[in-house]
């Protein structure tokens, strides 16, 4: 905690143009939203450095390799962006319902169901033109994932079941369904060691953005994030959602259809995560198997909280956390850290980000002079 405080005061001199009080009054809130999560991030990195130092590793090496593995070379940038793509989409799965005051943490389940649906669509449409197959995969992934989270939303609205717990339970149920299908009905008999479905076919893969190794899933993510931002902050629907999130009783009194709002938002949220599953199948794995449960859904929760549930802020944060997970391999090879070190760092960041919630509105110089 002390490191965090120190960091935020360090940043004061460099970031905030403190000379103009009017500027602070207008933008103090925005600066706060950048400064406080930034300070939490730096604090978390410092604690992780101490943690690693306890195991006899040099923290400076750690920071260097993390930077190098994430953003040091064109190759690592591409690796980072490839990992950021599903993170943007799974983060939306938490951020969209958060506008309504719901805490959904089941993005991983929607991702798995989306992947399964997209694979089924592709396998059913073998022989059709690739574009038709790809469009069908997108639709199937979005609908599959969307219905999955809509279930959690519906249970909350119509049965009063807590959506945080139900969405997490649905993750384990989704994983069981996936394992059941890839080891039974949908199993490719040729996949012996690692039960998988049949491949969707090389022609149906969505491929890379020209000139890079980054697949088109990144564009899907960017479009989804920007569209979500417009939806929430610049449409009547988004306004209604935020009203309902702020005060559900007021929303009902002014006649907003809260049931429909919740179901629609949950469908869109799950659809985003389902799209992430489709992207992982159609751009990375080429088939569905247990590899898909790689934790993108859980990291997405952290991305959403770090971005303060703002769809636009999710983009840079997802790239940052994509970078952290991209550097995991390098940390393993060069420093001999276990692969779980990325998980530890993510956990520390999460704890710091939540603790930093206490700081909003308390940093004296950002309040401006009244």
């Amino acid at each position: 905690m002390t490191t965090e405080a120190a960091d935020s005061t360090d940043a004061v001199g460099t970031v905030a143009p403190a000379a103009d009080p009017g500027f602070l009054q207008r933008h103090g809130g925005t600066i706060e939203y950048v400064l406080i999560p930034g300070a939490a991030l730096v604090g978390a990195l410092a604690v992780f450095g101490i943690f690693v130092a306890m195991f006899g590793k040099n923290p400076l090496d750690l920071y260097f390799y993390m930077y190098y593995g994430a953003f040091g070379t064109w190759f690592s940038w591409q690796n980072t962006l490839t990992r950021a793509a599903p993170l943007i989409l799974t983060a939306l799965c938490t951020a969209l319902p958060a506008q309504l005051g719901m805490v959904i943490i089941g993005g991983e389940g929607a991702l798995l169901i989306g992947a399964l649906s997209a694979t089924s669509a592709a396998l059913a449409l073998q022989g059709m033109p690739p574009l038709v197959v790809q469009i069908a995969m997108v639709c199937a992934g979005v609908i599959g994932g969307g219905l999955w989270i809509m279930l959690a939303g519906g249970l909350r609205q119509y049965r009063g079941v807590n959506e945080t717990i139900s969405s997490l339970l649905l993750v384990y149920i989704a994983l069981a369904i996936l394992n059941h299908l890839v080891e039974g009905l949908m199993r490719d008999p040729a996949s012996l060691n690692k039960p998988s479905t049949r491949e969707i076919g090389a022609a149906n893969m969505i491929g890379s953005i020209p000139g890079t190794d980054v697949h088109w899933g990144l564009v899907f993510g960017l479009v989804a994030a920007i569209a979500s931002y417009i939806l929430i902050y610049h449409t009547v629907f988004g306004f209604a959602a935020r009203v309902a999130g702020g005060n559900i009783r007021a929303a009902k009194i002014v006649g907003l259809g809260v049931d429909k709002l919740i179901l629609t938002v949950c469908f869109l949220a799950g659809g985003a995560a389902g799209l992430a599953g489709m992207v992982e199948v159609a751009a990375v794995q080429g088939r569905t198997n247990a590899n898909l449960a790689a934790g993108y859904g859980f990291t997405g929760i952290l991305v959403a909280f770090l971005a303060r549930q703002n769809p636009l802020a999710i983009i840079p944060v997802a790239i940052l956390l994509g970078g952290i997970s991209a550097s995991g391999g390098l940390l393993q090879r060069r420093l001999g850290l276990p692969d779980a070190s990325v998980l530890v760092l993510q956990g520390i960041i999460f704890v710091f980000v939540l603790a930093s919630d206490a700081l909003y509105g308390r940093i004296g110089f950002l309040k401006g002079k009244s």
Partner: protein
Amino acid sequence: MADGSIGLWTVPLAVLGGAIRVSTPFLFVSLGECITERAGRINLGLEGTLVMGAMSAYGISYLTGSPWLGVLAAGITGALLGALHAGICSLPRVNDVAVGIALMLFGTGLAFYLGKPLIEPTAPRLPAVDFGWWSDIPQVQAALRINVLFLIGVALAPILYWAFRTTRWGLLIRTAGESADAARAMGHSVLLIRLRATMAGGFLAGIGGSFLSLFYPGSWNEGLSSGQGITAVALVIFARWDPLLCLWASLAFGGAAALGPALQSVGVTSGYHLFNAAPYILTLAIMIITCSPKRTLTGAPAELSITR
């Protein structure tokens, strides 16, 4: 009978044995969460606590040769994670559900990190008490090989029930959970009561974890707990915050969780994964049946954010 083959009777027997074996972590986590939630706070991080408890119990048991020291270490680890949860939650404007999610990820990650060297070695396991000596059937004997931790858990449920009703501490915890203002008016620090309740909850959840690594399944690996912690949290809601109901619910869930392996042992292998998901499906089904959008649940502590 003589050759020990009892045909399809294996399934109910294995479910009974499983109910006893598998329910122990459910029981400890749900009793722990019961204490925390009665004080008005929800700790979703017990999933992480469970895994950390399993890892530290296995490590300490391996290093010292004493599984009981491992159990103690697991409890202390859990209490520390509980203190971390309560510490962050006592800051202003911090949401306890979100902190729980963070600690779930943090605890799991930390356990995987520190537990890497523990996957290979074998640690001494907790002893079992044989209650099946009267029977010649090996399946019955296996089903009744009961761990002491289970017995402690079974004893703990009525003790907690009694403590909530009659002791000073039980009353304080319930006051903090029902009305923080009333507790404050009586001159007690709500944050301190909740800190202690969360630490006690974490202690029990850690012990639940030690059962996983030191008795059943009885080894440390990264797939040891998949959602048992969160299922137990949901189970407290189903049990209406009553320790005695937690005991029965844990037994039911243990039985459900044992169904998959039991069916597999008699050759029913199709749907193995679906049967393994039985506890989660059961939890969800029970929540759907018992919850209602129109009223808060009877017995719910009024200060609890998750039911408001």
